[in-house]
C-alpha cells in the first residue's frame, strides 16, 4: 500500500487507485465536453441566420442528437463520477473505493462506448438523427442502420454507470471512518448516495427500452408498433421513466458541490443541513412519479395530465428549500468571491431561473403552447449549463489545489467565470423569447421574425465556447506549477479532505481517521 503510482501508461490502464480513476474520468469528461461543444457550435452556426447555409438538414439532425447524447452521457455524468471518485473516499476517511478493480472497469468502458457512438458519424446512413430522446418510431422504423451501434453503446455505458453507482453506494455505506455517522457526512456524499441509488434504479430501465427497440428493429416484435397491438407512446413512458430521474442524476451531485463551496466562502456552516438531506431524498422520490410531464401534448387521460402536473409542481418545494438554505448560508456571512464561489453564486441564481421555467412547463395547459419549442431548450439549458456544468467547474476550481498541490490563477479563473456567465446568458436567455413566440426546436431553419434573437444566441454560444479554452489553459498551468497550496487551501474549510496534504498523497487514510 505504501508505494506510489507505477510509471508509464500502464499506470492508467491497470490502476485501482481512486484518484487516478477520478482523474481519468475528469479528463474524459472534459474531452467529451469539447466534442459535444463543437457539435453545439455547428448547430449555432447553422442557426446564425435563417435559411440553410452550412450543413444539410440531415446532418443537422445528427448534430442535435449527438450533442445531446455526448453532453448528457459523456460530459456531465462522467464528470460527477470523477469528482465522486476523487472526493468521496477522502471525505469519508476511506482508503479507496470499496471495489477498486471494478472501478477501473467502469471507467474504461466509457472510451470504448463513446468511440462506438461517435464512429456512427462515419457509417453508411449517418449517425443517429432522432434526437437524444430517440422517440420511436423515428428511432426504430425510420432509423439509420447505425442505430444498432447506438443501442449497444448505450448498453455498455449503462453497465459502466451501474457498476460505478454500486461502487459508490458500497463505499459510502461500508467505508466510512469511525464516527462518520450518516448525518455527519458532507452533503456531496449524501447527494451522491442518493444519485447512485437513482442510477441503479433507472439505468436498467434505459437498457430495457433500448432492448425493446433492438427487438422491434431486428426481431419482429411489436412493442412500439400499433399494427401489432403495441404503442409508440409506450416508448415515451419507458424512456421518461428513466429520463426524468436522469435529469436529477445530473443535478443532485451539483447540489452537493455547491453545498460544500458556499459555506467555505461565506465562512458560515451550511444552513439547514438536515433539511438539505431530506429535501434531496424527497426530490429523488418525486423524480419517479413525474415522468409524463414530458408527454403532456402526446395525450393522456385528464387524470393523468392533472396528476403529473401537480406532482411536478411539488418538486419545486424541496428545491425551494435548498435554494433558501444556500441563500441563508450566505446571509450575513463574511463572503469572499474566489472563482469557485462566483460559479456557485451564479449557480444559485441561474439554476433558479431554470427551475422557474420548469414550473411554467409543468402547467399542463401552458405546456401545450411551450412544448417542443425553444422555451424548453432554454429551460433545460438553464438547469444544465449554469446548473450541472457550473457546479462541476466550481468543484474543479475548489479542489484543483488539493489535487495538484498548486493554486490556479485567480485572475484567469475570474475571466473564465465572467466570459462564461455572459456567454451563457446571451446564448440561452433569448431562447425563452423565441420559444414563447413559437420557434420549434430541432429544426435547421426558422421564420424570419426569429432572426435577431438567433443571431444573438449564436454569438453568445461562440463566446461561451471560447471561454472554456481559458479554463483548459488554467488547469494545464496549475498542473505544471503555480503558487503552492497549503493543506487547508481555503481558510477554515470544513471536511476531511482539507486535513491531508496538498497534493493529496497517492494513498490517503490507509488507517481511518477518527471523526468526532
Amino acid at each position, binding site marked *: 500500500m505504501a508505494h506510489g503510482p507505477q510509471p508509464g501508461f500502464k499506470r492508467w490502464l*491497470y490502476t485501482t487507485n481512486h484518484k487516478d480513476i477520478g482523474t481519468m474520468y475528469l479528463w474524459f469528461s472534459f474531452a467529451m465536453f469539447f466534442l459535444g461543444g463543437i457539435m453545439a457550435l455547428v448547430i449555432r452556426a447553422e442557426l446564425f441566420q435563417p435559411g440553410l447555409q452550412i450543413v444539410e438538414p440531415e446532418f443537422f439532425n445528427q448534430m442535435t442528437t449527438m450533442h445531446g447524447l455526448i453532453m448528457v452521457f459523456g460530459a456531465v455524468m462522467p464528470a460527477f463520477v470523477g469528482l465522486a471518485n476523487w472526493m468521496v473516499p477522502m471525505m469519508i476517511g476511506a482508503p479507496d473505493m470499496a471495489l477498486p478493480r471494478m472501478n477501473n472497469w467502469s471507467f474504461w468502458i466509457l472510451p470504448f462506448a463513446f468511440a462506438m457512438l461517435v464512429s456512427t458519424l462515419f457509417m453508411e446512413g449517418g449517425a443517429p438523427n432522432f434526437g437524444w430522446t430517440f422517440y420511436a418510431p423515428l428511432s426504430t422504423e425510420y432509423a439509420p442502420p447505425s442505430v444498432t*451501434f447506438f443501442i449497444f453503446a448505450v448498453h455498455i455505458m449503462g*453497465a459502466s454507470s451501474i457498476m460505478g453507482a*454500486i461502487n459508490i453506494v458500497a463505499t459510502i455505506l461500508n467505508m466510512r471512518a469511525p464516527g462518520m455517522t450518516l448525518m455527519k457526512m458532507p452533503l456531496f456524499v449524501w447527494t451522491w448516495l442518493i444519485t447512485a441509488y437513482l442510477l441503479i434504479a433507472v439505468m*436498467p430501465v434505459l437498457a430495457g427500452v433500448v432492448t*425493446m427497440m433492438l427487438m422491434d428493429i431486428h426481431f*419482429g416484435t411489436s412493442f412500439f408498433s*400499433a399494427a401489432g397491438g403495441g404503442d409508440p407512446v409506450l416508448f415515451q413512458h419507458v424512456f421518461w421513466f428513466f429520463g426524468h430521474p436522469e435529469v436529477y442524476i445530473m443535478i443532485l451531485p451539483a447540489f452537493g458541490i455547491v453545498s460544500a463551496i458556499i459555506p467555505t466562502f461565506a465562512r458560515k456552516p451550511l444552513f439547514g443541513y438536515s433539511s438539505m438531506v431530506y429535501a434531496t431524498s424527497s426530490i429523488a422520490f418525486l423524480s419517479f412519479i413525474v415522468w409524463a410531464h414530458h408527454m403532456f401534448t402526446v395525450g393522456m387521460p385528464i387524470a393523468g395530465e392533472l396528476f403529473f402536473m401537480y406532482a411536478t409542481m411539488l418538486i419545486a418545494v424541496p428545491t425551494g428549500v435548498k435554494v433558501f438554505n444556500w441563500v441563508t448560508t450566505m446571509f450575513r456571512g463574511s463572503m469572499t468571491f474566489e472563482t469557485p464561489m462566483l460559479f456557485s453564486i451564479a449557480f444559485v441564481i441561474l439554476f433558479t431561473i431554470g427551475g422557474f421555467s420548469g414550473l411554467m412547463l409543468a402547467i399542463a395547459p401552458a405546456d401545450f403552447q411551450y412544448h417542443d419549442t425553444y422555451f424548453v431548450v432554454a429551460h433545460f439549458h438553464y438547469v444544465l449549463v449554469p446548473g450541472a456544468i457550473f457546479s462541476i467547474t466550481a468543484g474543479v476550481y475548489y479542489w484543483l489545489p488539493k489535487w495538484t498541490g498548486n493554486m490556479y490563477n485567480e485572475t484567469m479563473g475570474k475571466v473564465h467565470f465572467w466570459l462564461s456567465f455572459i456567454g451563457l446568458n446571451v446564448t440561452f436567455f433569448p431562447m425563452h423569447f423565441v420559444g414563447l413566440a413559437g420557434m420549434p426546436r430541432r429544426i435547421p431553419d426558422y421564420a424570419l421574425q426569429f432572426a435577431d434573437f438567433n443571431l444573438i444566441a449564436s454569438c453568445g454560444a461562440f463566446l461561451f465556447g471560447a471561454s472554456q479554452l481559458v479554463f483548459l489553459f488554467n488547469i494545464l498551468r496549475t498542473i505544471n506549477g503555480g503558487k503552492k497550496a497549503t493543506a487547508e487551501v481555503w481558510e477554515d474549510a470544513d471536511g476531511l479532505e482539507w486535513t491531508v496534504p496538498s497534493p493529496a498523497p497517492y494513498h490517503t487514510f490507509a488507517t481511518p481517521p477518527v471523526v468526532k
Partner: protein
Amino acid sequence: MASESSYYVPEQSRLPIFATVGLGLTAYGAANWVNGNSSYLFMLGSIVLAGVLWAWFGQVIKENMAGLNSDQLKKSYVWGMGWFIFSEVMFFAAFFGALFYIRTFALPWLGGEGDKGSTNMLWQGFEATWPLMTTPDAAVNGDAAKIAGPNAIIDPWHLPLINTILLLASSVTVHFAHVFLKKDNRKAFNWWLFATIALGVAFLFFQVEEYLEAYQELGLTLESGIYGTTFFMLTGFHGAHVTLGTIMLLVMWCRSVFAGHFKKDDHFGFEAASWYWHFVDVVWVGLFIFVYVLGS
C-alpha cells in the same frame, strides 16, 4: 498488508482493462452481427469476456483464501451483490411495466375506448382483447396482414404449472443447502445444491419444450403481435437469468465438491448465487401470475 484490520486495496490489475476489451468487442460485434455482418467479433469478445471473468473470480477467491479480505471488505461484496440484484429487478420492471401499460391503456384505446379511443379510426374493426389473437393489422388487412396474431396460447395449467412447482421447490432446496452448509454438513450441502441445479435444468428443459410448442404448433412467436412480444421477452429474459443462475450454482457446486471451498461461516460466493436464485424465482411467480394465468 494481510492484516485483518486493514482494507485490502489491490495494487494494480490487468483484469479490468481486458474485461473492457472483451465487453467492447462483444458489444461492437453484436451490433455488427444483428446488422447482418459476421458474428466473429461477437464470438471473440464473448470468449475474452468469459475468460477474464473466470480469472477475475478466481483471483477474488484466492485473495479470500489467503486471508486478505477483512470483514469490512466482505461487506462490500455483499452490498455489491445486493444492489446488482436490485438493478436486475428494475430491468424486469421495465418489461412488466410495458405489459401493464399495453393491457390497461394502449389496447383498450386502440379498441376505441375512452378519451383516446379516436385512434381506433385508424384500425377500424379492431377489438381489444387479451390475449390479443387478432392484431390491429389483421383486423384491418385480414390475410394480407404483416403482423398476424397467434392461433393459440400456452395453457398455464400444464407446463407453466409444472415449472412453477419446480422453481418453488428449488428455492426450498437451495435454502436447505444453505442451512446444511452453516451446520458444516458438507455432504448434505452438496446433495441439496445438486438437487437445486437439477430442478433448474428441468425447468429450462420444460421451458424449451414450451417454446417449441409455441413456435411449431400454436403460431405464437416473437412476431405474432404484442402478445407474443411481451410473452417471449418476459419469459425469455427470465429463462436467460435462470440459465445464468444455474451456471452460478453449478460453479458453486464444483467449487464445493472438487475444491472443497466454503466454510460454514465464510461462503459468500454461494450465498450470492442463492440470492440470485431466489430472485429469479420471485420473478417467475410474477410471470406465472401476470403473463400466464391472468394472460389467458
